[in-house]
């Protein structure tokens, strides 16, 4: 019952009085806990029914206590559930806050003789029953990580004081740093004793989306969502306290879902590392009967590299978005972080194949719930068993990388660490992916642009290149962009090297004759005007950068000393030579300590040039007007002349 205890009601401190303790343990025993501490579904269902609470309330109870997330009732969940039922029977809302105070024992009709009989009516709990049944059946093998947690509630039970049932991962995430959400399963469980009410509600709320997403996989429709929705409303205000991660819950892909997606991917394309072509994917997703604009939007979100085909991670993203959409989730405007291909969640576990064979989405067929509730329950189980995926809430996707499947990290405590460590490399990779997606090579036949640009702009400024890659020779704007990303003291250099780290080495630059001409023109006049001096520097820089790319392969270290050499060298007015980069570095005449200044100057030059162009245009227009006016004047004067003799004479 590691899962149970872990998932449990999540860190709720519930103070149990002696009578309650006895009663609850009695009830617990009554429900036939199995060896791992999980309670028999039938017994629990019976007990819940006996409480004579409305089905909706029982649903809420199940969610709040965390059993829904887990898929079964462990000791922790059970106790909390009992408390919640007591609260509900008294009339308090089903929330963990309610259980903080003193409550009478819950009433179970016909179960415990010492409990009073209260309400004769008991609405049928068709929903809760299959849910509970479902939640208790199909127990997936729990990862060993959960086992340590199992002992926790047991030991805490011994203390006759407040104990904090381990919190299911879903609850803990909001308190933990967002990076750790789904993972610090075990870690948080032990520590989150303060997450009481909030957490209690959070599971309720979180399990809602979870329930939504998982049932959706089973094409469960809204029948079960209604009670869930009320739960959502009740925990809505607590959601604000939750960190942003919460809202992303539906965007996590659980193991089961991933397994399902994998199978679907294989049906379309046997090789997991290959791409699914656009048309193939289109036909496949069209079967989901979503409107085409939405599918189009989903495609845009998921095709990160914009290649018109889906890799496996992209496919999972798209599938997951479709699933979420089918279950009523609005499509996000941008791809949630956990759905990005660069997102890596350690501890991703492949679901046992038995679960994966169940249809998560029935595409053309029935999309209605029906008997799928049971499946939903078992899915809940599956999902709760996931160590890394914070059970219901985090049906968020994680690493889209194909290597997800082999990763199985037994120790939950490793997960947070690993997650952090993977997240860090991921963020640059994500950034990389984003940059790549934005800046993938574009093949325009735009050589003429280059020519035109060259003609238009003066030679010293390197003409903007078409988006081959973000090679440093591309427009200065890009350099500025990279520079702004905060690369350090030597922005351009680092940005260049960073860029080179991200992208393949830039192609060799086409020769720039004008630059070399400038070289030959201004060897002697380096000390003259600043602009004149700058020009060879620009040219130098372009050459320098060109050489830089070759340098880069040798490592970044050589660049620094080379660059630093520029300063002493630049003192001397050595004529620029058009030979190797070392010569190019030496040709810097003036001191350009950071390339940033050079860039600024280049920008200033461009601005000035632009202003010049504008003013020139203005000038020409004014000249024309002047001519016109002049002509008028001439005509008027001639007319005057004609008239004057008349006047004078």
């Amino acid at each position, binding site marked *: 019952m590691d899962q149970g205890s872990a998932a449990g009601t999540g860190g709720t401190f519930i103070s149990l009085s002696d009578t309650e303790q006895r009663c609850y343990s009695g009830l617990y025993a009554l429900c036939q806990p199995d060896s791992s501490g999980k309670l028999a579904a039938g017994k629990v269902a019976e007990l819940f029914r006996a409480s004579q609470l409305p089905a909706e309330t029982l649903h809420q109870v199940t969610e709040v206590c965390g059993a829904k997330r887990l898929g079964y009732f462990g000791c922790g969940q059970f106790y909390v559930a009992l408390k919640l039922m007591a609260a509900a029977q008294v009339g308090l809302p089903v929330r963990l806050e309610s259980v903080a105070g003193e409550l009478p024992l819950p009433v179970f009709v016909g179960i415990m003789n010492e409990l009073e009989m209260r309400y004769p009516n008991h609405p049928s709990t068709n929903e809760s029953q299959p849910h509970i049944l479902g939640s208790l059946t199909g127990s997936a093998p729990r990862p060993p990580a959960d086992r340590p947690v199992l002992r926790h509630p047991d030991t805490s039970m011994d203390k006759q004081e407040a104990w904090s049932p381990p919190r299911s991962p879903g609850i803990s995430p909001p308190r933990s740093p967002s990076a750790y959400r789904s993972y610090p399963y075990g870690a948080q469980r032990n520590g989150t004793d303060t997450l009481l009410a909030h957490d209690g509600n959070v599971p309720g709320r979180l399990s809602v989306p979870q329930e939504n997403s998982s049932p959706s996989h089973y094409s469960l429709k809204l029948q079960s969502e209604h009670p869930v929705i009320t739960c959502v409303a009740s925990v809505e205000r607590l959601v604000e306290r939750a960190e942003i991660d919460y809202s992303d819950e539906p965007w996590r892909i659980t193991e089961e879902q991933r397994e399902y997606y994998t199978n679907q991917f294989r049906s379309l394309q046997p090789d997991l590392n290959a791409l699914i072509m656009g048309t193939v994917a289109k036909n496949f997703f069209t079967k989901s009967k979503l409107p085409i604009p939405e599918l189009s939007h989903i495609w845009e979100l998921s095709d990160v590299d914009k290649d018109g085909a889906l890799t496996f991670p992209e496919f999972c993203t798209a599938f997951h978005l479709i699933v979420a959409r089918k279950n009523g989730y609005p499509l996000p405007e941008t791809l949630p972080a956990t759905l990005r291909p660069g997102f890596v969640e350690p501890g991703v576990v492949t679901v046992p194949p038995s679960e994966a064979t169940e249809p998560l989405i029935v595409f053309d067929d029935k999309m209605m719930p029906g008997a799928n509730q049971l499946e939903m329950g078992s899915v809940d189980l599956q999902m709760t068993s996931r160590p890394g995926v914070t059970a219901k809430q985090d049906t968020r996707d994680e690493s889209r990388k194909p290597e997800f499947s082999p990763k199985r990290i037994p120790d939950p405590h490793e997960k947070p660490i690993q997650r952090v460590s993977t997240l860090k490399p991921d963020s640059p990779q994500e950034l990389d992916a984003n940059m790549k997606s934005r800046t993938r090579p574009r093949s325009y*036949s735009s050589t003429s642009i280059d020519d035109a640009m060259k003609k238009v702009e003066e030679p010293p400024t390197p003409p903007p290149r078409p988006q081959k890659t973000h090679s440093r020779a591309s427009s200065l704007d890009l350099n500025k962009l990279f520079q702004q990303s905060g690369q350090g003291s030597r922005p351009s250099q680092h940005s260049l090297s960073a860029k080179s780290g991200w992208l393949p080495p830039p192609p060799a630059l086409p020769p720039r004759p004008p630059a070399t001409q400038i070289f030959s023109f201004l060897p002697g006049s380096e000390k003259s005007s600043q602009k004149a001096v700058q020009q060879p520097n620009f040219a130098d820089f372009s050459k320098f950068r060109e050489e830089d790319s070759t340098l880069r392969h040798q490592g970044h270290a050589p660049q620094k000393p080379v660059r630093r050499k520029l300063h002493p060298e630049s003192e001397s007015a050595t004529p620029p030579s058009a030979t190797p980069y070392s010569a190019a570095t030496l040709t810097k005449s003036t001191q350009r300590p950071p390339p940033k200044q050079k860039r600024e100057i280049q920008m200033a030059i461009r601005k000035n040039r632009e202003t010049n162009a504008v003013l020139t245009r203005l000038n020409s227009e004014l000249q024309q007007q002047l001519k016109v006016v002049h002509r008028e004047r001439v005509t008027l004067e001639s007319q005057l002349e004609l008239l004057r003799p008349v006047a004078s004479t």
Partner: protein
Amino acid sequence: MAVCIAVIAKENCPLYIRSVPTQGELKFHYTVHTSLDVVEEKISGVGKALADQRELYLGLLYPTEDYKVYGYVTNSKVKFVIVVDSSNTSLRDNEIRSMFRKLHNSFTDVMCNPFYNPGDPIQSKAFDSIVSTMMVQAC
């Protein structure tokens, strides 16, 4: 920044038109329509040369007293037209070119989407967001 951005398909039917002061839209639609003539003129003028020698950026198509119209045509004869305010003299040619480049990029992204049928109006939110960044922010 641009006042109006339009994407016109090969057959000269509009795929996407967006202007900033939305009440004066019709005027911009007319402007874009008349600018198509200029575009045709420019691309047919180089028609005898090979397609790759024709540059994609057409530059200033024609100025009016209120605004200037710039054109850009892709290899598949899809035209982008940007209308900018004349009073905004600080707009460099380079900036216009970069705007067209961005447009072209996001247009190819839209094209890559298998759910997009060429000839349909462009309804992509990503494309919209790119265009919004280029439109005049002041209003």
